[in-house]
């Protein structure tokens, strides 16, 4: 079994509850991994485990068939994570935020202005983020994904706080990323309509 990103026998226990047990998945370039489940079913925890933030009870996550725990730096250099909390500073402007983010991970050689245009945030560039709406802040977080030059996208509930146009845009962006040979792990509690090979993990 070879896959770009894979996992087997994952078990996670938090405090008194077992969130998932003997879970496995595989993901190859161009594919989407969909984590499905109700709120509180452990999607976010699984996402955090994939990102290497939670220590698992059993099991291992593999990147290029090599345990992630043994190549953390390389693995983290290949992913960008759209988390529940955006991880952006409310006191700083969009540009200041993204400039700092640029140091954290490899950056793609792309036209920033065009990306801002497409996400409809170029007018907001000089405002502190706290004056932006939740939906606009999500769009800034999306800009972070587009600016990073990484194959793996981790998206935790990417549609929250977005209007219909925004949701459509996310679908479009994911499809483009997959077409270009990228990968995406997405946690969602509703059904989504994405034109791609979808592997499902039910929680």
């Amino acid at each position, binding site marked *: 079994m070879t896959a770009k990103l894979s996992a087997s026998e994952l078990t996670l226990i*938090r*405090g*008194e509850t077992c969130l998932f047990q003997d879970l496995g998945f595989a993901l190859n370039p161009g594919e989407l991994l969909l984590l499905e489940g109700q709120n509180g079913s452990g999607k976010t925890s699984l996402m955090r485990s994939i990102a290497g933030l939670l*220590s698992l009870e059993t099991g291992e996550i593999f990147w290029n068939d090599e345990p992630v725990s043994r190549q953390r730096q390389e693995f983290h250099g290949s992913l960008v994570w759209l988390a529940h909390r955006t991880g952006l500073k409310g006191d700083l402007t969009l540009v200041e935020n993204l400039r700092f983010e640029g140091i954290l991970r490899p950056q793609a050689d792309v036209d920033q202005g065009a990306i801002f245009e497409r996400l409809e945030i170029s007018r907001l560039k000089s405002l502190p983020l706290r004056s932006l709406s939740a939906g606009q802040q999500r769009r800034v977080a999306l800009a972070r994904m587009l600016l990073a030059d990484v194959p793996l996208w981790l998206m935790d509930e990417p549609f929250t706080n977005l209007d219909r146009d925004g949701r459509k845009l996310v679908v479009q962006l994911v499809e483009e990323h997959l077409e270009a040979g990228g990968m995406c792990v997405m946690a969602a509690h509703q059904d989504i309509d994405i034109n791609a090979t979808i592997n499902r993990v039910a929680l």
Partner: protein
Amino acid sequence: MWKFFHHLTSPPHYYRVGATLIPWLAIPGLALIAYGTYAGLFLASEDYQQGDAFRIIYVHVPAAYLSMLAYAFMAFGGGIGLIWRMKLAHAVGAAAAPLGAAFTFLALVTGAIWGRPMWGTWWEWGDPRLTSELILLFLYFGYMALRSSIDDTAKADKASAVLALVGVVNVVIVHYSVEWWSSLHQGQTLFKKGGPGMDADMLYPLLAMIFGFTLLFGALLARRIRTEVLFRERRTRWVRELVLAPEGGK
């Protein structure tokens, strides 16, 4: 070899062995303490300077020694637990902390009681050992406070292990800096530590007390580790079988 070691330190194995281990540590320990107490109080000749007050060392020195030994257990346990993810090691750390705090407290109080007739005061800041012990007590408090404020046991284990390791470096620095500090202020020294300069009838009871207390500490620690193991493994099958077994497994 590794497998054997792994089996030896597996929680159910320890839980069983620990129960038989405790009396083997406690009985010789208590016997040594009984001898040491009797010999120290009645057989050892009195100190030519301190008179009979010197007999306090028979409890003070073992307590002070164990206060540091317990900290070493805590730090080693934490380090092993962090590196090899050994659950038993974290349980050792958790069990050693309250014992260590108790012995540190004893060392402090017996030191203060000794100080009253010798220095004419209950507390002498100028004494480097007492001051170091006091800081050690605060380190124990910090460790236990951190542990109790984190609900998730696994997380509490790791966080407190980091603190214990940082603290163990600190204990050394505290020792030397306090020594330097008290030398500036012409501090008074508590007891001259036992050794070749001590008469045999004074020294043997002291050695008996130190060994006896160490064994007793081992027994107390072993019991606390058993409790920790039982609590940590409460969801496992072996605990379930233990509890449901007709004869019980207390």
